[in-house]
């Protein structure tokens, strides 16, 4: 009995391990500014697609919940709400109100963006981040305290980042019958023939090379949950490895997964940027003093 209690306590402790509030303040800036980049550069199809509402073919949430149909005025309204909401939320002012407004508007935006047949798979962690950040509440760059509710939010983002890789390995298994069938197949050849860049087109002459790469990818994806328990240099190495993988798929196929990449920040000690920024600010705001001090 007491052993079960200890195990339960360990699980709860893992999900709520305190995170410094200064880290929250920094991540919040990154996430909310990235959402702006997202709606203008990555999911910028929402307003153009609203011109073809006949092709709107939403997923379950769009069919079952009483959500509105896409239209150009609605899409433009959402865009304005997200811009204002993100700018306010990024400053840390009204973290809950602004955060929830962004969460609702951004989720509706994503239902539209992903509601025309194709569903992309790089936004899971970003959508989770936008939903959990408002639950933390006030957090300043200069806060020295840490918080368990911040810990839960960060853990949710971290787990959804890892799920993006691990679950994709699971689906490969489900769909192929065995991981080996997938890894020994022609997925990379298929992808490169359909949308490969000039940089990698030559690889289709060497199918064995791409099969080796497929094995490498599926192994990394299955091992990805280990990252949740890594610390220090090993963790940084893992972050660089996954970021490097996304850089490669970007150069090879034009697929960058930036919405997931930005959420890798939730693994890093971002609060260490605060003193660096403060020193930079001090140097910029007081340049005259050092000059006048000189004889």
């Amino acid at each position, binding site marked *: 009995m007491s052993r079960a209690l200890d195990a339960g306590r360990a699980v709860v402790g893992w999900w709520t391990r305190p995170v410094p509030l200064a880290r929250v303040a920094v991540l919040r800036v990154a996430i909310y500014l990235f959402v702006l980049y997202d709606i203008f550069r990555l999911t910028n199809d929402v307003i153009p697609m609203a011109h073809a509402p006949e092709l709107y073919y939403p997923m379950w949430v769009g069919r079952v919940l009483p959500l509105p149909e896409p239209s150009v005025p609605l899409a433009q309204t959402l865009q304005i709400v997200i811009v204002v909401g993100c700018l306010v939320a990024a400053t840390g002012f009204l973290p809950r109100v602004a955060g929830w407004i962004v969460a609702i508007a951004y989720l509706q935006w994503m239902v539209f963006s992903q509601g025309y047949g194709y569903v992309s798979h790089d936004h899971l962690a970003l959508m989770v981040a936008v939903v959990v950040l408002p639950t933390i509440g006030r957090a300043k760059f200069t806060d020295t305290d840490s918080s368990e509710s911040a810990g839960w939010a960060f853990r949710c983002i971290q787990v959804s980042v890892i799920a993006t890789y691990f*679950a994709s390995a699971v689906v490969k298994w489900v769909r192929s019958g065995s991981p080996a069938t997938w890894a020994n197949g022609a997925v990379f050849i298929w992808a490169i*023939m359909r949308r490969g860049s000039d940089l990698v087109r030559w690889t289709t002459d060497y199918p064995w090379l791409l099969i080796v790469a497929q094995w490498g990818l599926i192994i990394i994806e299955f091992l990805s949950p280990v990252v949740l328990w890594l610390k220090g240099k090993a963790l940084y190495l893992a972050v660089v490895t996954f970021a490097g993988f996304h850089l490669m798929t970007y150069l090879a196929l034009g697929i960058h997964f930036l919405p997931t990449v930005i959420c890798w920040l939730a693994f890093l000690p971002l609060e260490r940027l605060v003193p660096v920024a403060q020193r930079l600010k001090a140097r910029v705001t007081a340049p005259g003093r050092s000059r006048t001090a000189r004889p």
Partner: protein
Amino acid sequence: MESASAALYPVYSRAVSSEPAVRRISRRGLAWRLGVTGVALVILTMGQLQDTNDYFPLGSLSQYATPRDLDGTVRSVYMMADTESGERVRVPLNPQGVGVGRADIESQLNRIVDDPSLLQAIANSWSELHPDADPYVALYVMRSTYQLEDGIQQGEPEIEQLTSWEVER
């Protein structure tokens, strides 16, 4: 590591000293957080095992999950259009072109082949987004198919027309 004494202070209270404190979660706050986490993880897991996008945003992470045969085919869908001035052009299936992307068309291919009138939306969207451009008068959904052998592409692709639509004004 936070100071051990901080753990003894009640929810949201601070140590009097400037020692960093840990702000604890209330029991209620903990309960709903763990509940939401559990439900989300169950939906996400079901999304993978049932291999469905329908549970979006917690659906399957099926990017490039479909296995491909080294002796199979590589198919790619694209769209062509006849314009008012009599040219045959490739339809730009992207946000800057007609809004809807190639992957959207491929995902809805059966629906479009069953009911080609859906293509009217593509022509409308092109005219609305590019009012000064040459409007489309006819649309063709095309598919190119390359044959692979041991993973190596064999010759030129086979091109087929899957459906077409005369644009209504």
